[in-house]
């Protein structure tokens, strides 16, 4: 059986679907750095340039989840879950006006998962 690197909680998926309805095609890009960083940013698909420098970790709720390759090198041993938390984040992420913020919860991938990851 194939294991996923990234999944989403039902609460986060509900918000994601609402935002998809509002904004059309979207992507997640995991941010690094300052202030509102280290958070998944939900962006209109046509707004954000994705290329070979980005790694596609998988799909959650029909939305691709990317992060830059250099960042992935430090994250690849962990499993990610997209969740939401009440609060006002900053940034250009589409969730900001909703009063909820997407948040990454992480845990270590186990041996079984590590052997059968896709991608």
């Amino acid at each position: 059986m194939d294991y996923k690197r990234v999944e989403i909680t039902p609460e986060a998926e509900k918000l994601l679907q609402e935002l998809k309805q509002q904004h059309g095609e979207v992507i997640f890009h995991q941010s690094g750095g300052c202030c509102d960083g280290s958070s998944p940013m939900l962006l209109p698909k046509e707004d954000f340039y994705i290329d070979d420098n980005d790694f596609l970790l998988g799909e959650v709720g029909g939305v691709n989840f990317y992060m830059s390759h250099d960042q992935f090198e430090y994250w690849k041993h962990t499993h990610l879950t997209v969740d939401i938390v009440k609060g006002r984040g900053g940034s250009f992420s589409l969730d900001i006006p909703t009063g909820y913020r997407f948040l990454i919860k992480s845990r270590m991938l186990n041996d079984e998962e590590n052997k059968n990851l896709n991608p």
Partner: protein
Amino acid sequence: MSYSAPKFKEKYGNFINGKFQDPIDGKYFENHSPVDNKLLAKYPRSNDKDVKSAIEAANNAKDEWVKTSASERAAILHKIADVIQENLETFAQMETADNGKSIRETMNADVPLAVDHFRYFASAIRAEEGSATELNENTLSLIINEPLGVVAQIIPWNFPLLMLAWKVAPALASGNCVVLKPAEQTPASATFLAEKIADLLPPGVFNVIHGFGPEAGKPLASSPNVDKVAFTGETTTGQLIMQYASKNLHPVTMELGGKSPNVFFNSIMDHDDAFLDKCIEGAVLFAFNQGEVCTAPSRILIQEDIYDEFIKRVIERTKAIKMGNPFEESTMMGAQASSDQHQKILEYIKIGKDEGAEVLAGGDAAKLEGNLANGFYIQPTILKGHNKMRVFQEEIFGPVVAVCTFKDEAEAIEIANDTMYGLGAGVWTRDAHQLYQIPRAIKAGRVWVNCYHDYPAHAPFGGYKKSGFGRENHLMMLNHYRQSKNMLISYDKNKLGFF
């Protein structure tokens, strides 16, 4: 002594064309204090219409503003500095209410540094000159610095007034009009400043737009009618803003955070003296401003032969940090800026533990009592591990430091540079050779040597690698807000002879 939140009005407007204006579509958002989660005031939830109006006001003002002499602009900047100085206590209380940081920091760092910043740029533009070079006996090259016109600036919430000063002072000094978007978490001090300096500047020269990134930030950053975008924030939004600017071929400057190494060599323990005491404090500075600093020394590297002895004293000092009501002067560490920030930090502590990091201090939320029970507090936390762990590689933006050891200089440099970022670093040693050679080997824009977290104007500040580019805090920032006009003048009466 104890302070309190200043009085706020029920709601505020955007500051456009010298006046406060209601948001065009009439929407507001609520701004709560992280100290106790209580409502402070409502601010405009602006959209592209409000942003357009601010950009228009700035464009209408720029032709007159550009004609002002350096001495006039310097005088205005000094007056802005005076206004902040005269209202120091109000600004400090406002920053504490809005951001959650302790009053001793806002009174002694945020606000005085903002004052000095305006004074520095007021002075810098009086002292600098363009240039004239005689290229040959008949040809003169004149270089004249000209402002870009209208500058869009997007600033973060960790030092609301100071980040404003870092961006607004050089932009105004160099003769630009500004449209500023403060962070949605901390709209208070920019609004208060606009109120206080409304009469000092011609209408439209300084505009403040509130709102959310996707609704107000995006139309500001992507507008073809601004001439530059300056941003402080995180990497993904940084890339996005650069893309928007690329459509217009607009210049940008970026300050995008870091994971700064703070390196302690064994010679620091040669004597138990004032300097060693300074080194211990230098390590504990990870908790300064609740760790919400882009240059937070969030990785401590200790030479292995002094590790046990040194970390023992760092832990003792960390455990002595007094948390509490940020408005109490004796409080050393206040609240995290928002609930989502609070939750994110706890998630990082958890993944650090999962990865096998050992908790040497803290490791959980801090539960404060009474009316602070709903605030967002985290215990200062020290995690011991290795540099490949995620807590060593990601900016947590909280009072959490990751500690590891190194054998020798080569390993210290290797670990220090094993990061995506390059904003700050600290080097602590009594060895004269290390004092120079280690900072040179670390790929970061600011290396503090035997000190940390000092941000004086006149010392350039900016990133290497994914920490961005541009150098704030220094007169070189003036040229990030200017064009160079070259006039090439011939004093030769004779033609070239080609035609």
